[in-house]
């Protein structure tokens, strides 16, 4: 078996056989983890829907789950999926779609294996929902770009080797047309990462200050001025990453709520019971909706349901954790620790209910506010008229800020 043969219509059984053959050759218990991951990438069993030579076999997207499950069952090492969620979920598809062949080979292998963590340098203090209004500038200087500006809400920046960056390369063009998309070396001079303390007390995200950072032109993804289209592609993958997926019953915020309900009958009242049951039903409905979305995607009919799933999960997380605090009574008034620190990437379900209540306030803001997502549904799904845009055709430099 070589890494580049890609038979047409590669099916689940073919893949299972390849995984089995791979595991026979590379025993997870005796192979060094990074070596194992590099070999898995080379065998095309990293992300099977990627092209041959880039960690995949050109197989159907829906077949990945079974491959991952087979590796997990065999005790194969993980590629730091939680730490590298931005890299795997957003940077990789963008690099694949817009990168050159040499960019593919430069970044995708170490991204997939988790050797290099990635972060996303999009939002700015002055550009949140209106991302296209961002002000970070990139000025051409020979074969390089000189970047100045400030990014915010950058998760993983303190771990990241690489960042995907949108910057303004033409301030005299209307805002969507003056942007370009780069990959920035987070170890380059002029890149400063600072923790950003949030309402939970900790610093989960970062501010990233870019001062005369020099980026070689061969680290640009897409054409000069095409940055908005590239960024849109990245963000489309973000909504899929946050919204879709297969989940067990009672997963998410309803899980700890239901567990607490079962453990504390003394806290039950008719009013709380009604709220408990409504949230259970809504969570189950949301779960089935996500399952159905996954089935549509697997069947090659991606639906626009992703935006809706995200709106719903944000609300359910908030309402479930809020009800959980009410069930706790006096304990609902206590908070574990407001000390500023860097949180570990971990399962939210293990955190204190009060922490979750606070953290989940961000769910309806991060990755597209629920209000913007309602616009998306209204305009792209229902075909309703777009919001009036006074800034669409005005040079960015002339916009009021």
């Amino acid at each position, binding site marked *: 078996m070589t890494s580049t043969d890609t038979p047409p219509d590669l099916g689940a059984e073919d893949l299972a056989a390849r995984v089995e053959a791979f595991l026979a050759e590379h025993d997870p218990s005796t192979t060094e983890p990074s070596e194992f991951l590099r070999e898995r990438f080379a065998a095309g069993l990293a992300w099977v829907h990627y092209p041959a030579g880039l960690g995949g076999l050109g197989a159907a997207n829906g077949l990945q789950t079974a491959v991952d499950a087979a590796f997990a069952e065999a005790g194969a090492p993980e590629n730091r999926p939680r730490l590298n969620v931005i890299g795997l979920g957003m940077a990789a598809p963008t690099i694949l779609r817009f990168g050159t062949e040499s960019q593919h080979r430069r970044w995708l292998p170490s991204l997939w294996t988790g050797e290099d963590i990635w972060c996303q340098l999009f939002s700015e203090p002055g550009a949140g929902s209106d991302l296209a209004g961002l002000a970070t500038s990139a000025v051409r200087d020979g074969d390089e770009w000189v970047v100045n500006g400030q990014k915010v809400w950058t998760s993983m920046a303190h771990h990241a080797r690489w960042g995907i960056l949108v910057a303004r390369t033409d301030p005299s063009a209307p805002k969507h047309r003056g942007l370009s998309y780069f990959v920035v070396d987070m170890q380059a001079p002029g890149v400063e990462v600072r923790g950003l303390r949030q309402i939970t007390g900790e610093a989960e995200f970062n501010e990233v200050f870019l001062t005369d950072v020099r980026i070689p032109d061969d680290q640009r993804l897409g054409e000069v001025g095409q940055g908005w289209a590239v960024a849109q592609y990245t963000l489309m993958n973000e909504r899929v990453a946050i919204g879709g997926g297969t989940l*067990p*019953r*009672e997963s998410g915020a309803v*899980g*700890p709520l*239901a*567990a*607490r*309900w*079962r*453990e504390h*009958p003394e806290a*039950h009242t*008719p009013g709380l*019971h*009604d709220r*408990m*049951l*409504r949230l*259970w*039903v*809504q969570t*189950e*409905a*949301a779960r*089935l*909706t996500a*399952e*159905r979305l996954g*089935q*549509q995607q697997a*069947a090659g*009919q991606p639906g626009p*349901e992703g935006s*809706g799933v995200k*709106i*719903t999960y944000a609300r359910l997380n908030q309402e479930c954790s809020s009800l959980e605090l009410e069930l706790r009574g006096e304990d609902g008034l206590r908070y574990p620790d407001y000390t500023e620190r860097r949180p570990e990437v971990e399962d939210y*379900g*293990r955190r204190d209910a009060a922490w979750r209540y606070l953290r989940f306030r961000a769910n309806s803001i991060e990755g597209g506010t629920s*209000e913007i*997502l*309602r*616009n998306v*549904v*209204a*305009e792209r*799904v*229902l*075909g*309703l*008229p777009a*919001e*009036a845009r006074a800034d669409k055709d005005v040079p960015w430099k002339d916009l009021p800020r």
Partner: protein
Amino acid sequence: MSAAAPTPSTPETGDLLYSDVEEDLRASVRALVEKQAPWDVVLARTDTEEPVDTDLWKRLTQEIGVAGLAVPEERGGAGASWREVAVVAEELGRAVAPVPFLGTVVATALLLGTGEDELLAAVAAGERTAAVAVGATRGPGRPVPVTVERQGGGDLLQGTVTAVIDAVTADVLLVPVSGTEIAVVEAGVDGGGDGVTRTTAESLDMTRRLTDVTFDGAPARIVAGADVEHALRIGAAVLASEQLGLAERCLADTVAYLRERHQFGRALASYQALKHRLADLWVAITQARATARYAARCAADGSPDLPVAAAVAAAHGSEVALLAAEDSLQLHGGIGFTWEHPAHLFLKRARAEALLLGSADHHRAVLAELVDLPA
């Protein structure tokens, strides 16, 4: 999260999409219903003495075979499943079609569990119409009260059942007479068989009238082994698809209207307050679709998760359909409050549906037991 408490296991989800066969079936039903029963025809019928469109029902059952879908071929049906039944329900809900489909679904589910194959085949073929004489608001998960008794333990019935759906044109009534027995009663075609008096009530939902049925020495055939609760559960699962179709129709009509209607020099559809309401409704409908499909697939496959699936679909579907119908009327403004506009047909259907086969509250109370979230 505490590890101590048990959480419900996750049953296999199964296929929640529509098959090509299901889409073909949908297209056939929609084409027939749009031609034969557009909303103005449905509305006009509500002012007549013939609230049921018997001609449409005849064509649906005899040309498309909608009454026999869940009945095996060897028992006189089409050998499809409750999934296909649910697709038909979506289309009939979308049109508020005044035909006895839901009652037939419950009756069929009941007969499938008995040896009444001759009657089952006749119902499947649309030659006969059966209704289950249970009060319309009774849902699965609670015992059905027996209000009809066998005189002296024999085969003459005495008693009354109020608020029966789809009994206006039924020629046979299936009457629970104990926890496990039903009486099969010949009801005649025009109001009453021997000892049976049917009174059609003025009903909130003008397109699905209620009937009060009185038995006074009505001759009956007693059939054992009937699972009324299961039949009601199938009914609730299928009703969720009817609610889905209705909600989709309300959203589509409202979107079309808001695009066309201008005030203050702008299309109403350009106002963010209204766009967000419609977006929320669309999100809710995607969920109703997923829950209804899951209930239909559990019904079709005899999944042990059907009680949960039906309760979730019914509790959620009721609220979504009602939201859709109420929002639709509100967003249509004054025109939506007029008799000449169809919004009230959907509102009345949705409001009534939210009580049929158990209210949302009933289904949540049932769920509380099923998923171990006690009061």
